[in-house]
């Protein structure tokens, strides 16, 4: 228990430190922005860093032809031993096309899975009676408030403020809350 509390404290402290450092030392910090706007050397460095990142992004964004994997496999298998070339797996590799990863394939179903999970959670909450308990809690809270008003400012005014509760309590008090 003590360890868990210490862990939580550590986590809170880490988050707080990270936020504070980002605010004062991060790229968005005001003093840094004002310095960069007036320092040509920093501007040059940032421009060249941006250029490297841009070139890397361009390299990643440029696609190769769909048959490249197939051709590369075919060429590589061509220099392997005869027995390996005759394997059925080698024949399969010669016709393989690149396929998206499982995560990428499942990515488009992310929203649907999220909605489904939300529905299941709501159903589960209804099943275990969280909503009815909340309803009871709200009704009893309002009843207590009505009693408080009745005690402080009088029954007539309390009936004006909480007409529904008054009708309910006059028709019967199923929860056993004492009327004043």
């Amino acid at each position: 228990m003590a360890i868990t509390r210490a862990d939580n404290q550590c986590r809170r402290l880490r988050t707080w430190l990270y936020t504070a450092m980002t605010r004062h030392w991060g790229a968005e910090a005001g003093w840094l922005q004002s310095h960069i706007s007036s320092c040509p050397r920093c501007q040059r460095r940032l421009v060249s860093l941006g250029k490297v990142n841009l070139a890397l992004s361009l390299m990643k964004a440029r696609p190769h032809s769909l048959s490249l994997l197939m051709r590369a496999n075919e060429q590589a298998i061509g220099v392997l031993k005869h027995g390996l070339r005759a394997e059925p797996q080698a024949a399969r590799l010669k016709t393989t096309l690149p396929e998206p990863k499982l995560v990428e394939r499942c990515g488009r179903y992310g929203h649907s899975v999220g909605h489904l999970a939300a529905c299941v959670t709501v159903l589960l909450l209804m099943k275990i009676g969280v909503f009815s308990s909340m309803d009871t809690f709200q009704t009893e809270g309002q009843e207590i408030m009505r009693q408080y008003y009745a005690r402080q400012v009088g029954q007539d005014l309390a009936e004006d403020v909480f007409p529904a509760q008054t009708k309910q309590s006059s028709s019967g008090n199923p929860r056993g809350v004492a009327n004043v």
Partner: protein
Amino acid sequence: MFSKALSCELLWDAAVSGVVVGRQRWILSTMQKYGPELVTMLWRILGNEQDVCDAYQDTFLQLAHFEGGRKPDHVKAYVFRTANNIAVSMLRRRMAERNRLSGPIARTEATASPAIEVDSEYLQEALRRRIAKLPEHLRNVLALRDLAELSYAQVGRILGISPGTARVYRCKAIQLLAMWMSKEE
């Protein structure tokens, strides 16, 4: 008698080749498992499809002849590092050839124009030239992390360093590349 000897020899050859094939079947499995990632990395380093095929072929040829056909302990690390080294060697050869063919005047003209600087092809080629010049330890991390898109943990495992060291090397590589890019301007 002669025909009996011949048939025995044939049988022996078939048995030996069968054993070798059985022993080296893992090469095909490796090709199936890491092939797509390797092709992507080689394509990003080289930017030319024929060069990619050649580098890929050389990688698997080296793998098949590793210590007389023995399977390396860490196949993924071996394959990625070999492919990376082969690709960079090809890139250097290509650069040297281009430098030899085009004179120094033509090169200075190509870098002087600001319109060329924003051209994506020019930017990519400029970065490739500089990646080939990086020290090996920085280049390996950059290639595996940014071009093969492996995680820092995977990069660390492949290169035998910690993920934190891989992060530091990547940061240094980017800084060095940026410095070289700004110097040439």
